[in-house]
């Protein structure tokens, strides 16, 4: 199995996520540079958190236009599993792999704290090791995590079971529509989420709820 982490100049969770992938897979992922126009064929591609190109203009907008993203989109269309975390989720919406947009938090402030999530869909490539409806704790850290889509899109997400995670009752940190914390494409192979599972994947950091995302995808792909 080949895993790749895409590194934009302003990515800052690239190492954190690589640590988790290596722990799950027993092998370090490839760190792929944003300016490269070729990406070795990958079974798993992760777009990490951070500020890709400073997040100027709109979060993820410039990253979505970078050379490597053409490759990511192409491989995603051919069946690679893709996970976008935080800024990575913003990039996935900007490049059209996932619908909707992440707007500024309702409270207008950056928010970094643990949130309680409900695993709404445990049939995605990443969530098989969770129970359906299970409540887990995973931190968020973002200024633009307020998921927005028009009513038709939201309805489609619901109908096609494309909502992967929601913030549990009363714990929505950003005002996201339908309490959406993460979504997937209808195949369940492309997942984007605002919370950071890589920040809660060992007991020393407070818990292991996020770890099953990584062990889950490795199990699914190997």
């Amino acid at each position, binding site marked *: 199995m080949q895993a790749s982490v895409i590194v934009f100049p302003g990515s800052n969770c690239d190492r954190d996520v690589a640590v988790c992938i290596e722990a799950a897979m027993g092998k370090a992922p490839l760190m792929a540079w944003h300016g490269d126009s070729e990406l070795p064929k990958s079974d798993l591609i992760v777009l990490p958190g951070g500020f890709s190109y400073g997040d100027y*203009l*709109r979060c993820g*907008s*410039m990253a979505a*236009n970078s050379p490597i993203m053409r490759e990511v989109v192409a491989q995603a269309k051919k069946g690679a599993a893709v996970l976008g975390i935080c800024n990575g989720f913003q990039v996935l919406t*900007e490049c059209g792999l996932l619908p*909707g*947009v992440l*707007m*500024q*938090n*309702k409270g*207008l402030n950056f928010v970094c704290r643990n949130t309680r999530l409900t695993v709404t869909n445990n049939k995605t490539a990443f969530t098989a090791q969770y129970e359906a409806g299970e409540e887990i704790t995973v931190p968020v850290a973002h200024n633009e995590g*307020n998921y*927005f889509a*028009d009513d038709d899109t939201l309805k489609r997400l619901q109908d096609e079971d494309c909502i992967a995670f929601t913030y549990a009752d009363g714990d929505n940190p950003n*005002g996201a529509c339908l309490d959406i914390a993460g979504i997937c494409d209808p195949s369940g192979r492309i997942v984007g989420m605002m919370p950071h599972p890589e920040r809660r994947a060992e007991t020393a950091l407070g818990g292991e709820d996020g770890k099953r995302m990584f062990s889950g995808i490795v199990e699914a792909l190997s």
Partner: protein
Amino acid sequence: MKATIHITLKNGVLDPQGKAIENALGQLGFGGVDEVRQGKLIEVNLTESDPKRAEAALTDMCEKLLANTVIENYQIHLDGEA
């Protein structure tokens, strides 16, 4: 040639910044203000001097990068046109 691009949120798209500004204005005692919306203003200088071609290039820039047309509208103003 100089140009200014106005990028605004589409109708029906929630605007938390606009809402917050509206509330803050209220708190400061400014009454009778509503429908506050915040957008972006991008000023550029182009070497292109033909208005038609400049407008076409700017449209292309908006579509590809400057605006997210899922939620945003854009308007191009070439200098001198107001």
